[in-house]
């Protein structure tokens, strides 16, 4: 048995803290320690992006980050994005509007990857959207409506070019 390490991670604006095994993955910290389940674990081999969350505002695959690596940092998951179900974050709203999901398994990861992309590049071209979603796999949609949703979200957010 290895020693535990105390971590303090702000999750969706709320301070959280726990003594964790160093090998605990951030995905499991969020799902099992904090207990919020929007973040999905798909491939568990850093390929599918279903587990994407924001770490200090940047997209990361939480199945490939240790909770101890996120100590003293801020994590944002899909739960932390929209103020309420009636008041969706522009990216979540665009996914709904453009039917950017079918089974929905990839969606939390896609949405978080999109939020990060638009923070870095508020006005991406279709090509840029496709290349920047390369780390997020979707079996259902063929990406067609996802790409449309991202472009619509960029439009809706306006952003400073």
């Amino acid at each position, binding site marked *: 048995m290895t020693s535990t390490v105390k971590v303090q991670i702000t999750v969706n604006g709320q301070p959280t803290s726990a003594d964790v095994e160093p090998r605990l993955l951030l995905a499991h910290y969020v799902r099992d320690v904090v207990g919020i389940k929007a973040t999905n674990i798909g491939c568990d081999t850093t390929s599918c992006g279903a587990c994407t969350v924001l770490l200090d505002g940047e997209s990361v695959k939480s199945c490939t980050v240790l909770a101890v690596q996120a100590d003293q940092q801020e994590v944002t998951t899909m739960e932390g994005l929209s103020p309420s179900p009636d008041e969706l974050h522009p990216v979540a709203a665009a996914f709904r509007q453009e039917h950017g999901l079918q089974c929905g398994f990839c969606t939390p990861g896609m949405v978080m990857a999109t939020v990060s992309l638009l923070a870095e590049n508020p006005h991406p071209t279709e090509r840029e959207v496709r290349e920047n*979603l390369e780390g997020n*796999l979707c079996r259902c949609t*063929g990406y067609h409506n996802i790409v449309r949703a991202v472009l619509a979200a960029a439009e809706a957010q306006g952003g400073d070019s």
Partner: protein
Amino acid sequence: MAVYKAAGELAELAKQRAADLLEASVDDLEVADGRVGVRGTDTGVSLADLAAREQLKVETVFDSGAASFPFGAHVAVVEVDVESGKAVVDRIVTVDDAGPVLNPLLAEGQRHGGIAQGIAQALFEEVVYDEDGNPLTATFADYGFPSAAELPSFTLVDMETPTPLNPLGAKGIGEAGTIGATPAVQSAVVDAVSHLGVRHIDMPATPLRVWTAIQAATEGAK
């Protein structure tokens, strides 16, 4: 279709019961907004009230008698790098005729997903084993699953030809994308290198397979 038929039969049953209750002629009744009402008046009874008095239930079977035929056409434009064998899909245009569509949003989504999977089957996806039978494509790091970066946006053309075999004229859309896109893309790849003498490439047309086919054809031509 069975649901459509059952709903019609249930509405008839509700009208008969309501006719007795409201002392009206069945012909004067209409079913709307969860109520059976006498046309042109405020008089009526809710379906819930009717069902509370006596269960409203029908059982029905729908048999179309024969299979309906959704049909369509898929056209793919691909670019093949003859040096590496890599193929890229530039455009894909599809017509899928499913008959009258109740929910266009869902039907389009079904087509999108199918097209992507069809392209992937033609170019990327394959379960590979080594000579000892060990799976080499056990994770998404090894299995050729396309991301958004490997696919274009799709052009869908709508066409609605009803089938006479059922009252809604609806056919089906389930596998239209996967059925059409695969041969369209695969044939486009072969066509793109046919000037070099290539006549066939096994699926998926991976760079190795395309490159090997080009080598074989051009060696043969020498």
